[in-house]
């Protein structure tokens, strides 16, 4: 069996050279979205009904609403940052045609996907779908808040909404929230898969902002 040779200084340098990829606002936006979505889901999501029944309902509603407003603010920010941010944060850097995304997914599944410093095509597509799903969730949430409770920015517009329409809006809000959760699961699987494939900790990179050069 061949003995492992110690790394030379040059090899060490190559292993540890890292560059800043995710700027502070992209990271802040990412983790704030994680927290806000979790808070919103736990405070009103059906799987947590038993926990919700043990807590103050009025407070849960307030927290849920403000988590939703936070998500709206973060989505606005991400939209602007996608055009005005640093290169790795821009949509132009990671949004690709569906054919490119599918070709990349095939290469991922055959373990031959090339490494990308920024988002890879599949990751970029997932981010766009996640942002769209979150947008649908908050729009339906704001509509429900206005039509059902008579509160929020849309209350005046949706004051006379019928009960059947309110029920439909509620179903849409729940559907998109659950769909977003499903996408989050897919995103996590993708992160783990890519981390193993390219032997780098992508979750850590979203914390520190740095990736191997």
């Amino acid at each position: 069996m061949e003995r492992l040779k110690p790394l030379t200084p040059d090899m060490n340098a190559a292993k540890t050279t890292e560059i800043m990829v995710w700027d502070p606002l992209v990271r802040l936006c990412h983790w704030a979205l994680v927290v806000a979505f979790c808070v919103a889901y736990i405070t009103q999501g059906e799987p947590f009904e038993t926990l919700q029944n043990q807590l103050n309902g009025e407070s849960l509603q307030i927290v849920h609403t403000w988590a939703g407003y936070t998500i709206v603010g973060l989505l606005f920010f991400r939209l602007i940052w996608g055009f005005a941010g640093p290169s790795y944060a821009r949509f132009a850097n990671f949004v690709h045609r569906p054919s490119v995304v599918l070709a990349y997914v095939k290469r991922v599944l055959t373990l031959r996907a090339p490494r990308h410093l920024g988002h890879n095509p599949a990751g970029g597509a997932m981010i766009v779908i996640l942002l769209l799903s979150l947008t649908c969730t908050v729009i339906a949430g704001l509509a429900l808040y206005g039509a059902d409770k008579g509160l929020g920015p849309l209350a005046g517009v949706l004051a006379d909404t019928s009960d059947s329409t309110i029920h439909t809006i509620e179903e849409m809000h729940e559907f998109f929230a659950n769909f977003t959760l499903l996408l989050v699961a897919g995103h996590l699987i993708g992160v783990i898969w890519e981390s193993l494939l390219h032997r780098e900790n992508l979750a850590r990179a979203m914390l520190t902002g740095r990736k191997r050069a």
Partner: protein
Amino acid sequence: MNQRTAIMSAALLATVTSLADIAVASETKATPPATTTAATAATAGHEITKEQAVEMALQAHPGKVTKAYEDTKKGKKTWEVKIDGADGKKWEVYYDIKTGERVAEESK
């Protein structure tokens, strides 16, 4: 933090604050003015307590009360009572706090 990052941080803060202002202003507008009937009912002692709301809800839908709390429904301050009904359904019944009137009921 470079200048662009600082500007975007300020813009994000301003967006959330503006949204909060709109929400608070709308919530103030959305609450309908108390009608003469509601005002009369309140001064005449028709305002109901949470316990009364629970009692009324149980009469309408017998079962086990899982939760009762103050909530807003269609711009009205209500008592929301959640019941695991004896009929196997989950009920949510809303009573106007000022008048005791049933505002809505939903089953799942």
